[in-house]
């Protein structure tokens, strides 16, 4: 029987479904029997999901304008990209 510490040690593989079949079945057993580990598993999964679902914010207009200026200067100075 896996301990909670064992379960946590395998949490990445469990979340990413990369554990081997035997380990996976032990992890399944543990999470069914242990409410605390189930909550940790569930809320860690949600933590990753909420980060993955977050689109990056727009860049402030002035920052974007300075980026494009810098690029245009480089393009003008160097002509075509190096391969050309």
């Amino acid at each position: 029987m896996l301990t909670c510490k064992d379960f946590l040690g395998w949490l990445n593989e469990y979340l990413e479904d990369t554990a081997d079949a035997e380990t996976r079945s032990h992890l399944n057993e543990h999470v069914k029997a242990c409410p605390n580990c189930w909550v940790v598993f569930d809320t860690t999964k949600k933590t990753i999901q909420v980060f993955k679902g977050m689109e990056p914010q727009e860049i402030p207009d002035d920052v974007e304008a300075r980026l494009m200026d810098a690029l245009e200067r480089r393009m003008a100075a160097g002509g075509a990209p190096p391969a050309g």
Partner: protein
Amino acid sequence: MTPTEQQAPPSGEEILVQNAKSGDVRAFTELVNRYNRRIFRLARHITQNQEDAEDVLQEVFLKAYTHLHTFEGNARFYTWLVRIAVNESLMKLRKRKTDKEISLDEPVSAGEDEVTREIAVWDGSPEARFSQTEIRRILDDAVDTLAPIYRTVFLLRDVDELSTEDTAETLGLSIPAVKSRLLRARLQLREKLTRVFKKKEEDLLAYL
């Protein structure tokens, strides 16, 4: 205006990169527009300084433009940009924190015990309870409290979605080191987010 404008801009990254390499400035500009927000976010989180992040943003795309001919296309173009961004960001971070060495290579401390104290189910989905702006602030604040060694690995793996191998290579870490840092980072963030997203008054439910 010109005949070339009839052509729809290529949507695939590979085609854009090919066109940019052969001198198509618009293709390169489209790559910039496609990825600049993500590169800026990464730089902001690693440097934790707006001014540094802006410098990094410019450096990344200037370097990418200058060295485009060295990009071989066996990695994703975006992964290549992330590598440049991480290097530039870490240089900035080290420059600012001269008193304190920033190392991504220090051993992972202690066990997981101290990051699993807050055990509570979440109250529905965060998206249903908080606005996008609020969630963004909550997530940004949570990431920014992580130590650089955890923050950087988490950003590359779970935010920018690089593979474990690419993350290891980008940061000069072993694969087991990436995995253990990612686990620590995920658990620390889970702990922080649970304090905000948990069901109120039911903190003890999980212990029953």
